[in-house]
Structures are given as C-alpha cells and as structure tokens.
C-alpha cells in the first residue's frame, strides 16, 4: 500500500469524507472538510484548500452530485463550501461577493444566490 492509500484508509476509518486529488502527479486524499471550493478551468477541475490546489478527476457537474449539503453551486464554473464563507456582501449586478476564511473573495452569481439562501433556510 502506498502512503496516500494508507492515509485515505485511515481517514475513511475515522469517518472522514475524502476525495482523491492529484498533486505533483501523486494521488492524495483530500478531506472534504478542508476544501474551500471546486473550480472548473479549461475543462479541468481543481479543488482548493486553504493553501493548496489539487486536480480532480471528473467534470464539475459529476462531482456536484457526490458532494454533501455543505457545497453549493456559486457560478457555472464553481462549487463553494458554505462552511468556509467568512461573510457575504451584495455586489454589482445583483451578485454577491463571498469572502472566504482565507480572505479570498469569490463571486456568487445572481441566479445562485437564491440557492444559497435556500440552503441556509432563508
């Protein structure tokens, strides 16, 4: 068993939800809890954590189906973890700017603001 697989097994045994990411051509288990957002760029999909970026296999819409309730679509090319949002602020064009825990600012498109509010029970 490789180190990555051992880590993945250990995480799964602890009840952690994981996703397999690729970094420097190595498969790495990434804890769902650590993912800030998943983005599709030029037909490729990436998961971003606080300090790292991992390539993922599969299309964004395929991954969306496997993600839990914490994740929601915030634009055509991005899925955001609602637990990593520090605050939101109404922006231009009836969109919203979400500041994440790492101070990165992500735009939530107008059509997906409704979805976020629904998930938050508003």
């Amino acid at each position, binding site marked *: 068993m490789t180190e990555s697989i051992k880590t993945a097994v250990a995480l799964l045994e602890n009840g952690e939800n994981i996703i397999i990411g690729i970094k420097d051509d190595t498969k790495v288990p990434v804890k769902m809890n650590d993912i800030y957002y998943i983005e599709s760029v030029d037909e490729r999909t990436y998961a971003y954590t606080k300090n790292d970026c991992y390539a993922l296999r599969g299309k964004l819409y395929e991954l969306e189906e496997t993600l839990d309730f914490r994740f929601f679509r915030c634009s055509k090319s991005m899925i955001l973890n609602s637990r990593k949002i520090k605050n939101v602020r*109404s922006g231009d064009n*009836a969109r919203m700017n979400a500041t994440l825990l790492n101070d990165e600012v992500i735009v939530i498109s107008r059509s997906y603001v409704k979805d976020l509010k629904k998930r938050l029970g508003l």
Partner: protein
Amino acid sequence: MGKLRILSIQTFVIAFFMVVIIGLEGLIAYLAGDVIGFSWYMPLSVVIVAILTAIPSLLLIKDGEGYFSIPRIVLHGICCYVMVMAAGYVFKWYTSLRYFIYTSVMFIIVYVLVWVVTKLLFRAEDKRINSVLEKIRDEE
C-alpha cells in the same frame, strides 16, 4: 435579490416617495394658505410612473457577468428622468418652466432616496445571511 423582487421593491419605494412629496407639497400649500387640488388621474399617474421608472433597473441587472458601471448608472438615471418628464407632460404635472424645474428637482430627490432605500435593503439581506453563516462556519 431576484430581478422581479428588485423591480417590485423599487416600484413600491418610488410610489411611496412620490406620494410623500405630493403630500408635503399639499401640506406646505395648506400652511401657506393656498389650496391645491389634484386631478382624478393623479394617483393613477403616480402608479404608472412608479412602474415605468422601475423598469430601467433592468439595465443594471444583467444576466451575464458584466459590471455595474458608472456609464450604466448614468444611462439608468437619464432613462428614468426622460420617463418621468414625459409622463409629467402627459399628466400635466408641469405647465410652466418653474414647475418643470420643480418636477426635475423632485425627480432627483426621489431618485437618490430610492437608491438609498435599495442599498439599505441589500445591507439588511447581507446581515441576515451573515448571521446564519456565522453559526455554521468552520473554525480555522
């Protein structure tokens, strides 16, 4: 906020401030010892103008990823002004230059007030969302 919601809020806020201004105009005239009367179509004209002037807001709410630019805001203001003055002409809100200027000043006041109220409503919504996000946020 959805497109329809913004439009309906703006319609109500515009109509509200127009009625407030007409009411104040009546009050000032009364205190000055004048008597002013309104034509039968005045309330209807307020509703029509409120709906018409809310429509240009669509200029500011684009489906794409465009930006809320200064030229677009200026264009929005001009569209609203033209609509109000055209409606004012039809509904005889002004019959002389003095009342034309008066109507223009009233337009600017209502326009600014509507944006202030809209901004405050957006802020209130942000606050509501942030209070829920705070409860579910991960600790880092």
